């Protein structure tokens, strides 16, 4: 660094003023101009978060919202060059600083995460699936999944109810959030626990439906597996219709 210590310190103090509103006495500056910088920088952060988290912005009081924005701007060392990713850092900050407890809004972390995931899935880089075939045997062939998805777990069903109502229904909620390959729309699918099991076996373990059913049969000792088979086939059909599943892997052996 070729800055003198003094020049470095001046830049530090200018940034500190903008972020915290403290120590406005900076050598060789005009107060009115400095005030504009703080206003402009804070507005940038506030506008970014208002756009990213419209529901949270509505649910929180004005004082709570301003507290989050001020604390985040003052204390968080923002890492991303890409402003559209800053809301994720905001969510992490709010979670880490336990504002859900401080504000007595236990759903706050889930709500911010839910709103962020919609942005992420909408905007994230395109991901190509492995080579696949459109047609195949649903029981015997491995299924290819649309790779542009996130599977999230929520404690409060902020995707189903208004927040005050969601508070009364705490539990385990699994939500598949994916980008429709034809029109880029972000869609949400509420998955019950059994379907999460199916989904993970199909996606992570690359098992066929027959293999999954065999595994369940062996593990549970069920003599009549038909009900499970009907359930999984309906699930798979729904996933195909919704373009979460998009075909069959080309590497299958049958």
């Amino acid at each position, binding site marked *: *660094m*070729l*800055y*003198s210590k*003094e*020049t*470095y310190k*001046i*830049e*530090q103090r*200018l*940034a500190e003023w*903008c*972020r915290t509103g403290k120590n406005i006495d*900076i*050598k*060789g*500056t*005009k*107060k*009115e*101009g*400095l005030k*504009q*910088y703080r206003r*402009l*920088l804070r507005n*940038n*952060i506030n506008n*970014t978060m208002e756009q990213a988290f419209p529901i949270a912005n509505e649910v929180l009081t004005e004082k709570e919202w301003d507290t989050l924005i001020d604390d985040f701007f003052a204390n*968080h*060392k*923002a*890492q*991303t*060059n*890409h*402003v*559209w990713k*800053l809301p994720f850092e905001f969510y992490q900050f709010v979670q880490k600083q336990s504002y859900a407890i401080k504000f007595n809004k236990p759903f706050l972390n889930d709500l911010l995460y839910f709103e962020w995931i919609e942005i992420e*899935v*909408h*905007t*994230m*880089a*395109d*991901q190509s699936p492995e080579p696949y075939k459109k047609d195949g045997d649903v029981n015997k062939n491995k299924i290819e999944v649309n790779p*542009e998805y996130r599977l999230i777990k929520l404690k409060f069903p902020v995707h189903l109810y208004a927040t005050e109502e969601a508070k009364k229904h705490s539990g385990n909620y699994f939500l598949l959030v994916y*980008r429709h390959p034809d029109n*880029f729309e972000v869609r949400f699918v509420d998955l019950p626990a059994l379907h999460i099991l199916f989904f993970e076996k199909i996606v992570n373990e690359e098992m066929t439906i027959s293999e999954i059913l065999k595994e369940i049969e062996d593990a549970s000792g069920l003599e009549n597996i038909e009900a499970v088979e009907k359930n999984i086939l309906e699930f798979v059909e729904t996933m195909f219709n919704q373009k979460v599943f998009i075909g069959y892997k080309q590497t299958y052996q049958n």
Partner: protein
Amino acid sequence: MLIKQEMTEDIKIGLGFRREIAKSFLDQDVINPDFIEVAPENWIGLGGYWGDVFRKVTDMYPLILHGLSLSIGSPEEVDWPFLKKVKRFIKDFNVEIYSDHLTFAKIDNAHLYDLLPIPFREDSVKHVVKRIKEVQDFLERPLTIENASYYTPVAAEMTEQQFISSIVEESGCKLLLDVNNVYVNAFNHNYDAKEFIDNMPLEKVMYIHMAGHYKIQPDLIIDTHGEAIIDPVFELFDYTIEKMTPVPVLLERDFDFPEMEELKNEMDRLRAICTKHWTSDVIQQRNI
């Protein structure tokens, strides 16, 4: 007539590509700029709907990049991972000009997401020149640096004009001359905008920005990019263009978008001024 036509083709008037007005760029029913400009930070790595739109629009128009987070005035190390992405983006989209601001936007490992003024000082010149050279070596091309608007001097020990000229001369970088910023700074800091233009290294100007601003107080203008260009800024542009040879000119509009006809009218007015001054015989005379 043929020669005049050739000069007209050298006049490039662009418009900042923004999501709010993306459809107009694709439809081309009102506007059809000669090029578009984006901030790489807002488009690198984007997929889905906006990734698709970006591919379409960059198939239709030449692209210039104007960055926000290079932070050439930061005390810390250049953000090499980010610059690596920019280099790749430049190559992927066949970008001719990559510019950023003569400001700092990151310090103590924290992005600020806005442009803060660098103290106009000798040690700042040395520091910024070193960083510009590092960036240019890495990118294997000249960096283009924009004169920024500023709302307070910060411990200045030299004039803005001396600061910019020294950096351009010592680093070998190019200059993005933002004419509106010259007007804004001249108003806010009581200097003569035309005299400032006279003392700029105009032969190093690679690119010009024009924009609107907002007078927030009787003695303070903010560079908002959210208003139409006012007549005195058009006049300063006219004064500047008369002294220069052709470079691309961009209309910046980032907020409060009007009907596209209004933006087209502003672009037409910029083009008319350029066409008036950038005739082949005048350019030839200037080059002698």
